[in-house]
Each structure stands twice: as structure tokens, then as C-alpha cells.
């Protein structure tokens, strides 16, 4: 009987992270609109609110000294942002209409040419690009850089950005979200306050916008608290990427399918790689694999290392130098896994946190920006009318505007593509083609997704084929964590919730899966299980563990990677 991660649920309950405001009134921080997460969604929301409040000073005044505040858990905006990324510029153009030209946006390279390849170990077969993957007119950018850029504009528009600040608990009073309690700082390994201990604060807001990105901590808590889970459970992919300085410019974007993934139905390995130029002297390349894979020896980090040994890739990066590394999960459930509503009393959900990602197109940044912008307009309209955002249904207009936007239409059309690939690469490809041809009308109904943690595990001898790290072309996990800029304080409480005594297959799955070497298979305890050793300070907060039987909670603010080029 094979092991399923879901049979070993983490010691976690959403209730631990819901609380009433407890600080005395004079110690509370009162803000107008509180946005959690300084990513494309949260910052687009802050920027749009700034624009609207500028035109309505009366409303701004009613919102108090801090009309808009943004919490960011990373060292600075952008520190935890990582994506491919080829971006559709439409939503950013809309956000800055009349204010900035496309040339003012931090785009690196305009996509002129592209190639999609099917790889075998030795060969690269060029195949026609599926219609969803055509990128002419789109731009390559670093989403980390985009975060810093948007943060500058949000601050210019009057938003207060609080970096190194974690949204730890949802403040709920009388069944309504009234803000967020930030995380404590300066606790020791066992939770004891150290010399530099600083307790968190209650930040009380008229409306709360959760734009936490993939695996959003409070988003998960709120969806649970208000019973907003969608038709299907959310599923994820894990992406690991590197940025390289290269000797010669790459003139097109490249996507690959096939090797080093295996096509066999029994492996359920769905994913591929990307190689994008970043200006003339850098490229970014990454490997993305659906988290419903079965083999406990699969390691996306090591697959990326293996990919780089392929002639197609070596020809691009050979003689170059690795500048950066990072990892992050991507919500892949799409339309089927969206929450039943994108708002609750006093709260709205945006961007990746809500699952607004178009998997066949490999895009979500423009949806994040658009959803953030629409959330700002809905929240503003509610507050402008003197209404309270806490009234049930007061933020309904956010759902309405998103449903009539391009985001909804596109996501609906591709809704059944990701589930099709659970049956293997070739059958999935055929089904996806049929859906594209009929704009999502065939098949008519909705497919069903299975939770990543429910997939039964198998074991092959996959790891034996990963290349040994040479420190030039291929790298081990620890030096990669170093390249991510991670300098997390070691003596803080463990933020990763997992069962510590599990079957060896599950321990092996976590160990191989984690790109940051957080888990290690420990000693057998004689009862058929092993102890899992955890090094939480290696964690780059990719979220893979939450997809596969654990639960990530936010560590102390300012922990984790310090991405700049990703």
C-alpha cells in the first residue's frame, strides 16, 4: 500500500491564526485599507487606490493618517518575488494609463521570436508553439525588479509600505475581518522572547486586501474561516530558476517539454522548462513541475541541473556565470480551484493568492495587476459611498468586475487543460488541443482536480541520474540557497508544520522535493517510520511543503531569500 502525504496531515489549524483585536486602543495601528503582500497584485491595488484618493481628498481624509498600508514579509518589496517571467503588458498599461508609457516600465526584453522544443536526452525537436504559448508582443522582466518599481510608485501615491512585517493572524471581530495582527520578532527557538523581542501589533483597517501570492498564509486561513473553498481543491507546480550572465545574447524565448521529465502515465510528471533573455548579457532559465508527481526521488532543483547539461541549454549558458537562484510554487488549479467568492466580509483576495494563473499560457502577473486594480476600485467605491466594507456582500462589486474582465473569460476557456495532464503527457496534449480549438467549449463540463497531497507515492531510481554538482554548470542545493541571498536567523522558532515521524517514502519525498535542503531523512525509529530533520532557516518559502502534506507559516519578518534579479 503506497503512502499518500495527505494521510500525515500537519499539526496546524486555521483557528490558531484567527483572533480578536487585543491591543489596547491607543496601541493599535489604524489604517484605511490594509494590503497584505507587496507583489504585483498588492502594489497595483495600492497604486490604484492612491490614484483614486488623489482625486477624492475627502475620502482620503476620512481614512485617517494612513489611508493605505502594505505589509511585506521580505526584507524589501521584491525580495520574495520570483517568476519566469514573460509578461503581457496590457494590465500594467491600464494601471498607468495617462501616467506612464510602456517605455517607462521596467521591461527587459521584448519578445520577437520563440521556440518550443520537445527534448530527449540528446536531441531537441522543434514543435509548433501551442496557441496559448504564443508570446509575440509580450515582454521579459524580473518580477522582483517589477516589485521594487511598483513599490516606488505606490509610495509616491501615498501608500505606507512596511517591509519585514508578517501578516500572522487575521483579526476577526463579529464575523468580520477588521485587519491583521503582525508577527512577533525576536523569539528564540522554543518561542521564548530574546533580548530584542518585539511583539506584533494589531493593524485595524476599514478593508483588508489579501494579496499574499502563492500559498498565502492568511488567504488560506480566511478561505477556511469563511468557507470559501472552490469547486476543486487548489493544486500547485514548483518552479526552480536561475539567472545567468551569458557570453552571447539569446535572441528568442525558449520553452521545452519532455526530458528530463518522463512521459509515462505512472509517473504523472507534468511540466517543462523555460529560457528567456534578460537584455543582451543575461538569461533566466527554470524548470517547472506539477506537484502531483509521484516519484519520491524527483527533485525539481536537480532536474534543472540535469536540464542544463542538455546541448540546447549548454550552448546558451556555457562559459557564463550563475548570478541568482530561487524557487516558488505556482497555483495551477486555475478556474476550477478559484475560491467560491473572491471576497468575504471586509476582505478581498487578489492575484496568485486567489489562484488567478493561466497555466497553459504560463502567465499570472497581468492577472495579479488587474485583480489588484479592480480590488482597489471596488474597495474605494464601497468606502466612498460611506458604506462599511464589513457588511456581507459590500465587496460583491469586486467579484462582479473581475467576472466581466478578460481574466475570467480567459481562465474559463482553459479551465480543463491542467486536469487533462493527470493522464500523461500525450493524452493530455490531445485533450488540451481539443479545448483550444473549441475555446474551452469541449468538453462542456468541468474536470475535477485531485489534491497534490492525495497522490500515492512511488519510488524509482531517478536520483542516481542527477548530475553531480560541479560548481560551474551544476550546483548543489546549499550553495543555491546561498545564491538566493537567504540569511535567515537560525535561532528562531520553526515555522514549518509537518509530522516529524513519517514513513521513509514521505520523508524522502520532502527531502528531494525541497529545493532548499530544509528536510533530511533521519534515523529509523524501529516502527517503520523515520524522524524528519528540519533546518527551517534554509527555507526560501517556496510553499512546496504546503502542497504535499505540510503547512508553511510565516517565519519572522525579514527572513527568507533576498531576490533581486528573479
Amino acid at each position, binding site marked *: 500500500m503506497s503512502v499518500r502525504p495527505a494521510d500525515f496531515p500537519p499539526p496546524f489549524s486555521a483557528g490558531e491564526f484567527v483572533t480578536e483585536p487585543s491591543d489596547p486602543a491607543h496601541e493599535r495601528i489604524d489604517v484605511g485599507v490594509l494590503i497584505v503582500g507587496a507583489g504585483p497584485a498588492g502594489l497595483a491595488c495600492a497604486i490604484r487606490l492612491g490614484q483614486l484618493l488623489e482625486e477624492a481628498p475627502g475620502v482620503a481624509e476620512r481614512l485617517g493618517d494612513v489611508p493605505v498600508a502594505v505589509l511585506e514579509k521580505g526584507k524589501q518589496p521584491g525580495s520574495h518575488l520570483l517568476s519566469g517571467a514573460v509578461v503581457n503588458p496590457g494590465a500594467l498599461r491600464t494601471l498607468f494609463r495617462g501616467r506612464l508609457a510602456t517605455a517607462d516600465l521596467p521591461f527587459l526584453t521584448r519578445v520577437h521570436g520563440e521556440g518550443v522544443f520537445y527534448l530527449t536526452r540528446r536531441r531537441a525537436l522543434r514543435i509548433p508553439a501551442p496557441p496559448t504559448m504564443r508570446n509575440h508582443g509580450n515582454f521579459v522582466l524580473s518580477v522582483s525588479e517589477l516589485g521594487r518599481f511598483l513599490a516606488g510608485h505606490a509610495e509616491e501615491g501615498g501608500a505606507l509600505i512596511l517591509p519585514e512585517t508578517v501578516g500572522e493572524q487575521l483579526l476577526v471581530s463579529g464575523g468580520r475581518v477588521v485587519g491583521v495582527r503582525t508577527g512577533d520578532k525576536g523569539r528564540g527557538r522554543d518561542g521564548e522572547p530574546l533580548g530584542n523581542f518585539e511583539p506584533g501589533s494589531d493593524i485595524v483597517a476599514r478593508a483588508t486586501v489579501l494579496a499574499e501570492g502563492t500559498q498565502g498564509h492568511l488567504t488560506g486561513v480566511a478561505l477556511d474561516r469563511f468557507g470559501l473553498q472552490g469547486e476543486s481543491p487548489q493544486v500547485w507546480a514548483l518552479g526552480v530558476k536561475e539567472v545567468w550572465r551569458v557570453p552571447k545574447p539569446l535572441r528568442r524565448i525558449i520553452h521545452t517539454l519532455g526530458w528530463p521529465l518522463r512521459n509515462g502515465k505512472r509517473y504523472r510528471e507534468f511540466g517543462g522548462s523555460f529560457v528567456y533573455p534578460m537584455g543582451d548579457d543575461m538569461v533566466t532559465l527554470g524548470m517547472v513541475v506539477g506537484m502531483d508527481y509521484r516519484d519520491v526521488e524527483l527533485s525539481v532543483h536537480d532536474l534543472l541541473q540535469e536540464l542544463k547539461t542538455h546541448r540546447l541549454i549548454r550552448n546558451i549558458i556555457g562559459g557564463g556565470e550563475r548570478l541568482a537562484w530561487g524557487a516558488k510554487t505556482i497555483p495551477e488549479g486555475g478556474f476550477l480551484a478559484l475560491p467560491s467568492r473572491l471576497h468575504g466580509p471586509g476582505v478581498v483576495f487578489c492575484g496568485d493568492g486567489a489562484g488567478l494563473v493561466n497555466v497553459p499560457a504560463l502567465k499570472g502577473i497581468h492577472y495579479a495587476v488587474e485583480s489588484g486594480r479592480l480590488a482597489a476600485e471596488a474597495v474605494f467605491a464601497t468606502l466612498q459611498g460611506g458604506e462599511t466594507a464589513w457588511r456581507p456582500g459590500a465587496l460583491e462589486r469586486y467579484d462582479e468586475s473581475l467576472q466581466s474582465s478578460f481574466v475570467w473569460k480567459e481562465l474559463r476557456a482553459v479551465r480543463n487543460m491542467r486536469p487533462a495532464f493527470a493522464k500523461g503527457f500525450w493524452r493530455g496534449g490531445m485533450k488540451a488541443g481539443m479545448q483550444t480549438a473549441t475555446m474551452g467549449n469541449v468538453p462542456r463540463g468541468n474536470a475535477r482536480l485531485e489534491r497534490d497531497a492525495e497522490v500515492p507515492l512511488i519510488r524509482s531510481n531517478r536520483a542516481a541520474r542527477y548530475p553531480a554538482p560541479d560548481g560551474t554548470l551544476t550546483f548543489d542545493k*546549499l*550553495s543555491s*540557497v*546561498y545564491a538566493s541571498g537567504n*540569511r*535567515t536567523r*537560525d535561532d528562531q522558532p520553526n515555522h514549518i508544520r509537518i509530522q516529524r515521524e513519517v514513513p521513509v517514502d514521505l520523508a524522502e519525498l520532502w527531502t528531494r522535493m525541497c529545493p532548499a535542503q530544509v528536510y533530511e531523512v533521519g534515523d529509523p525509529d524501529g516502527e517503520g517510520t523515520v524522524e524528519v*530533520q528540519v533546518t527551517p532557516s534554509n527555507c526560501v518559502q517556496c510553499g512546496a511543503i504546503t502542497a504535499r502534506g505540510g503547512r508553511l507559516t510565516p517565519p519572522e519578518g525579514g527572513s527568507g531569500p533576498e531576490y533581486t534579479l528573479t
Partner: protein
Amino acid sequence: MKTLVFLEHHEGELLKPSLGVLSKAASLGGEVAGVMAGSDVEGLAAQAGAYGAGTVYVADDPRLDAPLPQPRVDVLAQVVQAGGFDNVFLAQSILGADIAAGLAARLDAGVNWQLTDVRADGDGITGTQPVLADTVVCEVGWTSTPRIALFRAGALDASETGGQATVEPVQPELQDFSLAAEMLEQAHEESSGPSIEDADIIVAGGRGLGGPEGFAPLEELAKALGGAVAATRAVVDAGWYPYSAQVGQTGKTVAPKLYIGCGISGAIQHKVGMQSSNVIVAINKDPNAPIFEFADLAVVGDVNEIVPKLTELVRARKGA
């Protein structure tokens, strides 16, 4: 150019990092003075002459007995203003960093910290500051005087010049608010040898030791060599050794003359904490361990066999 160096002392000895900073200041040229604050420290002050101080200002006062920063800010501010110093150098320590911050606020001056070097640059000085976990080295300057500089412990070597210093007593004028803090307790972490920041020789242990008991032979070796024991993050995480001995990216940065790594793989997180050691010796049974790529002497073998033998040999040599 006039440079003042804060001389930190502990248990009747001038601390080596302070003397390293003093030697560096002397090498820049110009007038170099030291400043000490404490109770019954006049005897120590004269020693600073041997490391290049022309004058040592001494504030000797029972109220300065406890190593608290604020009264020392008063003393330094007084000396800097009276003497017209252009530069104030301190070795980085808890006390040194607190004083530098307080002094900067008091004198409305700028501080550069974590410096590993400094050089004369025209009328001024330019510091060297590694940033981004030591992957990039920056040159830093000051826009006003006095220029306050904090130097990493162990970054600068103390060298004796054999000079003599004039000891000049200072009557400290301490502010009321500077005396508001009181030292309640001073605790010492039990250790038999020098601390890892001060030690010339470090014996460090990693996961390859196999367990907490693996540190006993390392302690023996360190004792025989007159050195200190350090540890990697992995073993500190596992609870085999205290956090105060952790060397690496998220622990301490050390630069001993001799570093002996035992059962340490040499992950980059550890390497950045010890890579500026003069001589690196690595003992590991895995011939592919990354530490061998930057070790000066690579010993492939079992630490549990080699270390006790090495200790014996060291003892025999020292006894002879």
C-alpha cells in the same frame, strides 16, 4: 590628520581587536591617540604605546567600572571635541558598536561599520566594507568629520612598533542620563580557552563528528594548541554545541592564523565565516567534500582517529 582609537579592555587586558585597529591607525600616519575608560586601568594604558599610540587618554573613574556604553560616549565625545580629532576608530564588539552609535548621534557624525580595512586618501580616509554576505567589496567614505569607523573583529592584525605612549588623564564629565543604566549582573560563558573571535587557532567540528561526543577530542586538541573550538550551523542546529561557537553566514566570522576543520563538508554558508583564515586544514573522510577545494592542507581520513593522534603529537612537541 588626527585619529583616536577606542581601546577596549577586559579583565586586565587590552583586547586584541582594539590593538589591531590601533596598529592600522598608526600605519595611516598623522597623530594617533588611544582612549580608555574604566576603573584602575592606568597601568594598561601604557601598553598601547607599543602598538603605535602617541598619547593615551585615560578616564579612570569607579563610575566607569561597568562596561556600559553611555558613560563612554561622554568620555569619547569630550576627548574628540577637546583634541579636535578627525577620525574615531573602534573595533566592533557589542560595547564598541553601542559606543559608535551613541557617539555618532552625540556629535552628529557618520559611522561606517563592518570595515575590514582603511587607507589614507588625500586629506581623508577610505574604508573597505564587504557587503551582501561578503560577495561584494565596497569602498566607503564619510561626508563630514569626525569620521567614525567600526572594524570587524579579527580583520586587522596587531603589530608591535615598540613605541612609548604618554598617558594623559581625563576628568570625565558624565551626564546624568548616562548614569541611568546600572550593571546588575555580569555573566561569563564557561570556556577554558580564548573566544573564537580572539583565538589564533580554531578547531572546528561539523556533522562528520557523528554526535555531540565527537567534540571532546576537538576540545582536547584546541586545549593542546591553545585555541578555541568552533562549530558549523548543522551541529549547532542539532544541539551538539552551543550557538555562541557557530561560525558562518548566520554565525560568527573568524579569521584565525590556523583553522582546522574536522568532519566539515564546507558548504558556502560555513565558508563565508572562515575563508579569510590564514591556513585552512581540513580533515574529512569524503574526498569529494567541497572544503578540500579551498583548504591549504587536505587530510582524507577519519577525524575520530586522526584528531586524538594529532593531540598526542602536539602535546609531545610542546612538552619537549
